[in-house]
């Protein structure tokens, strides 16, 4: 696919043209948007559709068996619309990780429902959940989770294996993703020789290559110094500006503050930060 970069992304350009006249602030944060549950459509849209939120938690609880049982999440409600940049901030032990695992379809709630793109995930099979993870969810971990024996390019390509990206497009997409995170010059490097910031950028490239509906970041800057943290958060902001939905889970208020919308979690309950 020599013409791939053009052909691959052609639809988006088309979309852009259609939307051309509608101006948007360059800042990346859309002031006209408010995080209201069920808020869909656009007044200027000529083909109004009802777009379900990417993430819709309804009375979700998760408790771990024990004596007494540990209630990590208690009847949580959360709606994340497309294109939102949400941070979930809370101290350790507040249920952050449990929430992330459930959002990432790695864990199942004990009660309540999680609608991903408006579809309930309560009853889907383990196989289907794996599929959804591969196709709709991108993960960025605190510990990067790069394969140490594989090159940067291979690490990014890894995500295409399971998400169903056509083989012919994989390489071009990976190159584009790495270019996007500014690591085109590191394609054949091993992750072990990269700096922490670079590693996290590789992880971000890997997370976005399969064009997920939502990017889940678990303490993405936990292993980084403040300078590289800023770099990664800048990257998140750029991705958000490009339309990516982001959910960042952190205990760091500074990281949380970069998000467009902040949600606080404590003792298994969520509350919006004004």
């Amino acid at each position: 696919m020599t013409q791939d970069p053009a052909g691959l992304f052609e639809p988006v350009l088309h979309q852009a043209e259609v939307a051309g006249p509608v101006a948007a602030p360059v800042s990346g944060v859309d002031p006209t948007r408010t995080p209201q549950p069920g808020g869909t459509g656009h007044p200027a849209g000529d083909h109004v559709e009802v777009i379900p939120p990417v993430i819709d938690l309804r009375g979700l609880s998760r408790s771990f068996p024990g004596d007494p049982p540990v209630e990590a999440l208690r009847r949580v409600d959360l709606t994340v619309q497309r294109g939102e940049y949400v941070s979930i901030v809370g101290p350790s032990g507040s249920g952050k990780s449990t929430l992330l695992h459930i959002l990432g379809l790695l864990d199942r709630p004990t009660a309540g429902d999680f609608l991903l793109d408006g579809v309930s995930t309560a009853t889907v099979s383990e196989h289907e959940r794996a599929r959804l993870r591969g196709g709709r969810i991108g993960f960025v971990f605190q510990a990067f989770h790069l394969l140490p024996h594989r090159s940067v390019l291979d690490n990014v390509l890894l995500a295409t294996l399971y998400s169903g990206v056509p083989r012919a497009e994989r390489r071009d997409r990976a190159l584009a993703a790495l270019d996007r995170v500014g690591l085109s010059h590191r394609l054949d490097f091993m992750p072990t020789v990269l700096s922490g910031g670079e590693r996290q950028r590789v992880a971000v490239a890997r997370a976005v290559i399969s064009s997920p509906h939502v990017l889940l970041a678990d303490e993405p800057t936990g292993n980084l110094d403040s300078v590289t943290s800023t770099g990664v958060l800048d990257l998140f902001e750029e991705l958000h500006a490009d339309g990516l939905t982001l959910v960042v889970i952190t205990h760091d208020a500074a990281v949380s503050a970069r998000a467009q919308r902040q949600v606080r979690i404590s003792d298994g309950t969520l509350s919006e930060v004004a």
Partner: protein
Amino acid sequence: MLRRLRAPNVAALSSAISRMRPRRVPGPSRWPLLRRTPWARRRAAAVTAAAADERLGFDRFGLRDLVSEAAHGIGARPGRLVLTIIGTVLGIGSLVVTVGLAQTAAGQIARTFDAVAATQVVVEPATARTQGGERATGTIPWDVEDRLSRIAGVEHVGAIATVNVGDLRITAVPVNDPSAPTLATPQVMATTPGMLDAVRGRIVTGRYFDAGHDERADRVVVLGARAAQRLGVHRVDRQPSIFIGDRSYTVIGIIDDVKRRSDLLDAVIMPVGTARADFNLVGLEQAHLIMAVGAGPVIAEQAPYFLEPNNPESITVQVPPATSTVRENVQADINAIFLALGAVALLVGGLGIANVTLLSVRERTGEIGLRRALGATKRNIGNQFLMESGVIGLLGGLVGAALGVAIVVAVSLSKEWTPILDTPIVVAAALLGGVIGLCAGAYPALKAAGVEPITALRGGT
């Protein structure tokens, strides 16, 4: 349409990744991967295409990905790979060597144990070194056929002697043509009537002479096939004659395909009686016997007494060596031991693979968790580890089979044997390694598939 507000941003950034964000597809299905099809077409068929494309399946961890990931997994630790496959290499190698050497030895025995060699006996007068060179110390009596056929186990007897015809010419027609090129004269041999059977010859046409011709000293000859060709005799029904000097002899038969004394094919063969009468033959040189299998020791002991009762040492008898059944039994035992050793080595090799793969699963829980988070199903993970151990086993099998073949060839070379080894056995041995790898990998693969992504992702790299 929130995204549309952002669209100029996209254009402004004009970066590749910006076009990779998720997009909505009208209709109930919203798979993000539809990007593959052009936008216009996709919109038209979006509702059904989404489901259809998903069903048709994109390249979601196909066989090629599986093999490639397994190869990377194996190749990541070459040192460990070598240690892992040693057991399989030894097992498969010893199997191939055992089978190969058994086959080679069997081929070797079959070579020496052909029916002709095993049942052929040659009786000759003993020779002694004297001043005048080597001379026979005994003689084979003229009635050798009668004498030796009485020994139990003797089936056919014949004796032979070379006839010295001096410088007499042997021709098919008595034409004295000085300009004709002088051809090499065929050898003249005298045999007893039983010689044809004793050397397992075949009559091409006509017949061999019998005891009557011998007793009467009839002037008849039988031609070897090549001699007949040289003399221009092709059929005997018109009773052609050949001339030895100026005496004519009737050709009564042509023989071919003798298994011993193939010089008979180039010879003019006459009865012993005729040779004694016409050429003063003084003695027989050699007697050939065909015996029943296993009669060798009896014949070797008794034949000299039947021929020279007063001086049995003057007769030498060459009998084929008896094949030792004891040796064969020992060989079979050794084979069984080697096969058992090979089986044990294979078992150990399989356990080694299982052990290392299990270790590898433990070490790579982080990787497994990551892959699960990236969308790998349990089956994907299990298959990957199964494939890795299968490939390790197959590698061991290939190396072992190759080493085994090399050893069989080297041993054969040193013993000057012809190495014999069935190719299917070598291929099967290599594949057996793969099967063992798969079996060994089953449990670790199950373990890997059962790894909980949450716990796996919590720690590690």
